[in-house]
């Protein structure tokens, strides 16, 4: 078994127009910048991106927004200082936005990866974000039903990987990356160090079964 691919372009080649793509990262940490740049160069459009943020400045997801490649963004916090490309596309009505509470976003992704049909959460009960959703009172407390969130692809950033697809992370760059690996039909990881030797099993955070391809990208933002 060898999940290593030669370069970023080969790694993102299977992503077609209209695909749904999870992208790891929070703020500027744990974002697969190399894979995003390769996806931009590859040219796929009409994409649905699932990510916590919607990019800032001219980097990461903001590059895809600027180039008009995204049809929809599912995220918890699109509005960060410098998120000008999201704001422009949103104000012009050129992009669909689904705002999901951050923990609900993570748990919907987890449910998809774990083979669950959804879950009831107290988050957002009684608020605008629960409108139109099934609710249930359990032991006197209100809960909202949330459906699993799958994706065709996940673009991930990890510190280390091996040919089996095992991944380990650095500091707060972990964030959404491990859970997104579980929920995509095809998870692609860019790793700062691609190790010839197997990773220490005690240090593996994402087991290789969740990862379809690994590519080395040594740049740390």
């Amino acid at each position, binding site marked *: 078994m060898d999940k290593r691919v030669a370069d970023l372009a080969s790694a993102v080649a299977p992503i077609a127009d209209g695909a749904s793509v999870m992208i790891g990262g929070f703020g500027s940490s744990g974002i697969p910048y190399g894979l995003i740049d390769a996806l931009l160069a590859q040219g796929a459009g009409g994409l649905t991106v699932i990510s916590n943020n919607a990019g800032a400045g001219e980097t990461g997801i903001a590059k895809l927004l600027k180039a008009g490649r995204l049809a929809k963004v599912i995220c918890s916090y699109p509005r960060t200082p410098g998120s000008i490309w999201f704001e422009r596309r949103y104000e012009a009505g050129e992009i669909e936005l689904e705002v999901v509470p951050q*923990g609900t976003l993570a748990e919907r992704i987890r449910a998809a990866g774990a083979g669950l049909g959804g879950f009831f959460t107290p988050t957002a009960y009684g608020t605008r974000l629960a409108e139109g959703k099934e609710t249930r009172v359990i032991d006197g407390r209100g809960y909202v039903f949330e459906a699993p969130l799958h994706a065709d692809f996940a673009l991930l950033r990890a510190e280390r990987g091996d040919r089996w697809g095992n991944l380990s992370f650095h500091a707060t760059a972990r964030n959404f990356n491990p859970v997104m690996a579980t929920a995509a039909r095809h998870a692609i990881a860019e790793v700062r160090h691609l190790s010839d030797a197997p990773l220490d099993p005690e240090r593996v955070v994402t087991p290789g079964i969740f990862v379809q391809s690994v590519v080395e990208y040594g740049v740390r933002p």
Partner: protein
Amino acid sequence: MKALNDNELAARVARDIPDGAYVNLGIGKPTNVSAHVPDDREVIYHSENGILGVGPTPAAGTEDLELIDASKRYITMAPGAAFFEHSTSFAMMRGGHIDIAVLGAYQVAENGDLANWATLDETYPPAVGGAMDLVAGVPTIFVMMRHVNRDGSPKLLKACTYPLTGLGVVSRVYSDLAVLDVTPEGFRLVELAPGNSLDEVQSLTDARILT
């Protein structure tokens, strides 16, 4: 009327953070609270992007670009820190494991309703982040806010007019003019900021303040 400045307000909130607490500080002003908690209290700060044990700001030149808090500020690790992924991080919040969260607010109602994620401006993209998860699961929610808006209109109301973050979730409000508990009967005065009278503060508050 004499309003506390941001540092004085952060210091006032910090007085009520007990030794041994697990605390989440919301983005913006609440992140300054930890700097005012006395060194003889060991408080473990959680940041939802995947760390328990947020330490002080790093010295210039020693920042780790992949070690940040939820405000996207560079941080350090406190002794005993741990990293984890997002679904675990939100299990800590929603599952009732965090003791206290300190959040900002656009509006708080006398029944404890909180509005802090969206305004009535539909052209502006809403951004909820982790606020709804925090208020759903953390038993004690402290709100830290200016008592009134820039135009002088009240933020402490009989009922919120902005979209809600959570219903009946606020425990206590720390404004620049007063500390108020949310009780079943409404806002109850804990203390006035030095140099203010109850009449003045009441005149800047839509809801009634009980004493």
